[in-house]
């Protein structure tokens, strides 16, 4: 099982021939991911590091049966690249690119959600997804994870905190089913609830770790959803408890979310839902270990 990526993943990388794209794509392949194609318009037909390159994602899908794409193109072309993958029939899209304008993502996410297809977009501005021992799509170093699949489902808005906290889990012998970095952008392709619902449905996942940050109300909503729907233990950690309060322009944000987005608000939401909140990254692993007895 695992979620989002696994042994059945056949990966096409948009922007594979760039320096960053090459580096991480090959790392993913080295990890064991089935890297089948790259896409660079105008370079169709060549081989790059042993990977066949196509002009379009549609051609790559036709030629290789790719079912998952990773987006590594520059920000101004990335929204279009996501749409291209979607239209080519790709069902799992992992967008690493950061600084995609929110207007673009609002349109992209609306477009994907309005389709009849069941498409998963992770990111943008995210470190990707790794299912230990199965597949790695993104930039999460495989070494921080457990070598074999384990019982912990992990989801985080922050990138480097994925590394830090998964590393601590691994050191305590707590293997992971899948680790997902959803990214911290205003309009993510998948939010906490989307990923939690995948963990709910995954029989291998026995306990879930959610790593958030101050700002917005995604953590509060996740807690409310989990209480009603998750049916598995959940441990929360939120970075930024001591961060200086951000300047706030006007009232619109507060009218919408009804939350001030503070650490306290998030911690309260978790505790009220019956979920423990870790004080620091190390405590996350300790709390999970405690739950596992």
């Amino acid at each position, binding site marked *: 099982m695992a979620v989002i990526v696994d042994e059945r993943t056949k990966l096409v990388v948009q922007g594979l021939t760039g320096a*960053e794209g090459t580096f991480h794509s090959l790392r993913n392949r080295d990890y064991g991911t089935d890297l089948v194609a790259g896409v660079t318009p105008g370079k169709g037909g060549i081989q790059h590091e042993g990977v066949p390159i196509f002009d379009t994602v549609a051609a790559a899908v036709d030629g290789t049966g790719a079912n998952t794409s990773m987006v590594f193109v520059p*920000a*101004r072309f990335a929204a279009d690249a996501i749409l291209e993958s979607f239209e080519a029939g790709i069902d799992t899209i992992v967008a690493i690119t*950061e*600084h*995609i*304008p*929110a*207007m673009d993502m*609002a*349109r992209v*996410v*609306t*477009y994907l*959600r309005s389709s009849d297809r069941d498409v998963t977009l992770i990111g943008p501005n995210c*470190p990707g997804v790794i299912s230990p021992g199965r597949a790695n799509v993104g*930039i*999460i*170093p495989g*070494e*921080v994870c457990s070598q074999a699949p384990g019982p912990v489902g992990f989801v985080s808005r*922050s*990138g*480097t*905190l994925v*590394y*830090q906290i998964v*590393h601590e889990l691994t050191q305590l012998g707590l293997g992971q089913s899948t680790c997902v970095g959803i990214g*911290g952008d*205003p*309009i*993510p392709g998948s*939010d906490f609830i989307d990923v939690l619902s995948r963990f709910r449905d995954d029989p291998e996942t026995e306990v879930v770790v959610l*790593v958030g*940050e*101050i700002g*917005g109300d*995604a953590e509060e*909503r996740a807690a409310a959803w989990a209480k009603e729907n998750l049916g598995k233990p959940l441990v929360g950690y939120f*970075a*930024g*408890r*001591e*961060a*200086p*309060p951000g*300047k*706030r*322009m*006007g*009232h*619109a*944000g507060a*009218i*919408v*979310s009804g939350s001030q987005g503070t650490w306290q608000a998030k911690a309260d939401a978790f505790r009220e839902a019956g979920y423990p909140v870790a*004080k*620091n*990254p*190390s405590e996350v692993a300790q709390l999970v270990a405690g739950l596992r007895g």
Partner: protein
Amino acid sequence: MDLFEYQGKELLRRFEVPVPEGRVAQSPEEAAEAARFLGGKVVVKAQVLVGGRGKQGGVKVVDSPEAAAAAAEEIMSIDFYDQEGYKLKTADPASLSDADRERLERTVPMRAKRVLVERAGELKDEYYCSFLVDRTNRSFLGILTSEGGMDVEEVNERTPEKIAKVGIDPLLGFSDFYGRAMTFGGNIPAEARKGVLAILPKLFRAFVELDASQIEINPLVLTADDKVVALDAKVIIDDSAAFRLPFFDELKAAHEVPEQERAAKEKGLNLIKLDGNVGIIGNGAGLVMSTLDVVKDAGGEAANFLDVGGGANAEVLSNALEIITSNPEVRSIFINIFGGITRCDLVAEGIIDALNRLSVNVPIVVRLDGTNAELGRKILADNPNEMLQTAETMLGAADLAVKLANKGGGN
């Protein structure tokens, strides 16, 4: 980027959103000149990025150029606090908790470097209107209510049904029925309806074409001659869209940033200055925030927030150290790196380079983990320096850095 009122209104004017006639002034003399040009009664408004500037004396109505100059002079000498800070400052000191008192002490007030001088007119009614990127629904939202003014959040808590919140499909764009849903739903009175219905699509177009994450008009007013006008404008622009906004850099230039933050930005680093004495360098915003938290738990106070980003190399680290050590408050430095894309060997090289290049006389605690961490630790060990210490864990490193800062020393 948060825009000043005068910047937001300048942009809104391009989309034919009615705003009062006005001129921005950088001195009392310019304010007087602006008042002379406009004639009659004018309002002088502090251009400062805080909420509730009116309560703090930042908005004055005057009826002569001389009075405008005096108002500008007074306004430009006010210490403005954000709403939270203002609440603390004006509260009975005895009623403050220790944490609040501490927060108040750490709050740095702001000055208005400019005033906006606008023609003043009689108002019949005030409304509240905004368009924003709605993170919760991953969509756009339009908000409108006849219960305008500064207390709209209270209205939202007490009587949310008085506020129309209308989701707007980002692909469909602004079809007129959204405007009617906002106008009738927000109880806009009949006399203002036509004007409000006309302004909404223009505001929405501005919202989209400016790549705004928020446009808030509070108040949107009905004037004595039955015109609907945006009397204030809080516009936030999505920095990620800067590449396609020809006006972005010019508007950005009007924003003052602390010298250290500016220097950091020039070197491509994301730094926010804080008021403690433990310098912080980390990779990734989440990890840096988390580092601030553990420093605090260890009894320390961070001197800054500095994220070297995803692919930090030796040069970046060296620059970061240079900037941190330029802050005289810093008593110790905590470098917290978990390598993913970032390679710890390059980080170590950057540290050594900085130590060789600069005369660093505060202790540095380094914690390396992740990609090439072994190699990085070896490089540090091979280049011993009395100012340099390493730690195995993030928590251990925090304890050490705080202990060193509290011990004193420094440059």
